[in-house]
């Protein structure tokens, strides 16, 4: 469980995040949405302890996040960041195996290796196993990183997965598969917190949605309650229409042609 209590974060008097509080449990899929610069990535960095809040407190499994060592955290949560540039000629298998590094000393066990292969299979890139990472396309590289993130968390009980725009660069099918996978992980008892740009995916897959606007919590709650036409217009500056197709269990969000000014 992650408990965020009134956290603020500012750099040189410029406030990037103000008064954000929420409680994410394992088994829940949280989507963080908001316009560019709303503080989504900052929030993810605070959650993963890359940054420390200037005020407020984050507890991770009822223990202050500050009291965790990097090594301990590495065995309890996995992070997929936005940019992943690798120039050295590591193979896909090597990169995914890096997710297992926190769990072995000098030599990976058979189990580590099988987990790597299984995660490659899960993400559907087992046929890339021996390809060199720099030779893959952007979307393929992102899927390798996803597999690495999965490998890191695979055997962790009540682990958390933080995904910052996990689907960037992926084609439609793999975007869909990624969300499906995230959903599956929550059913296995993991907690997933993801920055999501496509509101339709958020609506379709997330249990809870946190909507940020200019560093503040704008709305929080069930996906259906937060992702309303009004909220989306106020937070993103785009008027949308929300349809409920007869043959689909989910409503569909479609932007209207002309954007309105952000208030």
């Amino acid at each position, binding site marked *: 469980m992650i408990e965020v209590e009134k956290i603020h974060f500012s750099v040189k008097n410029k406030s990037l995040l103000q008064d954000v509080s929420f409680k994410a449990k394992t088994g829940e899929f949280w989507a963080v949405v908001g316009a560019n610069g709303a503080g989504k990535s900052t929030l993810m*960095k605070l959650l*993963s302890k*890359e940054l420390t809040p200037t005020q407020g407190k984050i507890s991770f499994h009822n223990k202050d996040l500050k009291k965790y*060592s*990097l*090594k301990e*955290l*590495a*065995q309890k949560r*996995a*992070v997929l*960041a936005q*940019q*992943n*540039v*690798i*120039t*050295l*000629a*590591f*193979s896909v298998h*090597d*990169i995914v195996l*890096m*997710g297992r*590094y*926190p769990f072995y000393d*000098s030599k990976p066990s*058979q*189990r580590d*290796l*099988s*987990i790597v*292969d*299984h995660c490659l299979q899960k993400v559907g890139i087992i046929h890339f196993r021996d390809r060199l990472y*720099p*030779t893959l396309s952007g979307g393929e590289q992102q899927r390798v990183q996803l597999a*690495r993130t999965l490998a*890191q968390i695979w055997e962790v009980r009540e682990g958390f997965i933080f995904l910052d725009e996990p689907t960037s660069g992926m084609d439609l099918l793999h975007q869909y598969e990624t969300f499906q996978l995230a959903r599956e992980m929550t059913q296995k008892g993991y907690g997933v917190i993801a920055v999501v740009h496509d509101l339709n995916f958020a609506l379709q897959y997330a249990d809870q949605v946190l909507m940020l606007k200019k560093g503040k919590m704008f709305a929080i709650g069930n996906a259906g309650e937060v992702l309303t036409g009004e909220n989306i217009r106020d937070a993103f500056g785009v008027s949308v229409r929300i349809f409920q197709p007869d043959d689909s269990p989910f409503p569909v969000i479609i932007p209207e042609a002309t954007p309105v000014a952000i208030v």
Partner: protein
Amino acid sequence: MMTEEETIAKTERKEQKMIQQELKQPLSPGWVILILGVALLGCVLFSVATGALSISFSEIVGIVSYKVGLTDIPIEEQQKEIVFWVIRLPRVCLGILVGAGLGVAGAALQGLFRNPIADSTLIGVTSGASLFAVIVIMLNIKFFGIINEIAGAYTLSFAAFIGAAVTTALVYQLSKITGEGGVATMLLCGIAINAFVGALTGLMTYMATDEQLRTITFWTLGSLGGANWTTVLSVLPFVGCSILFMPYLAKSLNLLVLGESQAAHLGVNMVKLKRGVIILATMAVGSSVAVAGTIGFVGLVVPHIIRSIFGPDNRYLLVGSAFGGAIVLTLADTISRTIVAPGELPIGILTALLGTPFFLYLLWNQKRNRV
């Protein structure tokens, strides 16, 4: 349908079987050490045998077994025995140490800076050592009564090592003050300090007399000519430490490939890693430069060679580069002392002369393999 637990267990069994069947695993560090160790041994034998006075293989065996007490009969030409123990072997040993130090430091720094063109010059080791060495040459040791008493004939080496350590510390501290301590800041600070220290060295050179200029030039070109057992033993602890402890950082350096923050998410303490690499690299390169002058290109090219043979994994790369550096330097030194015999070509000239085309070949080859 199988549960996932079963699937994993199944692949586990399958892989175990596969490994039993055909050992299709990548080379373990043990193999890398074995292969390169044999190559190094070959180079050492070749190097001690070659020179103005050539010693045959059987004579080497005779000399060594007489020394360790396996036989009571010394070889016929006692002169060769003296040449072997007093001139050749210490020189070869020094070459091994210096080369290994440059190689391992180069590989680790390339990993730390996530940059294939990084080498020890970037963090100020070489330029700092040069500056202090030039100062000592200029002031002509006699003014340094105190240092002279402690360091004796090794004042130059001593000063060079201090210079290397001081400059690197300066670069490291500056990067902490000016930036958030990321490696990119450190790289930039290194470039700035290098330029500054280089200018000071230039100023010294400008003021130098002809005699001093000659000494300075020869020092900056590097040579293993000053080798004896004392220099070997004084370099050994520094390079030895570096080679022993650097491989412990290999896993962290691998994770660093993913980026600084991603590495931190996987449990790497960046501050510790950076400090470790810098200290160990400075020890290795600082002591090497101190006794042999600046030998360029080994720290840059050797890791590339090892990477193209054994792959980019730092667990092989660091150890491999130590061996590779030792091999390259042993061979280069053999050439440098035989090619213009009885004179001696500065080894720095050779490493750069032979290193450049080889390096370009590697780049070309990489490109060819990628397409």
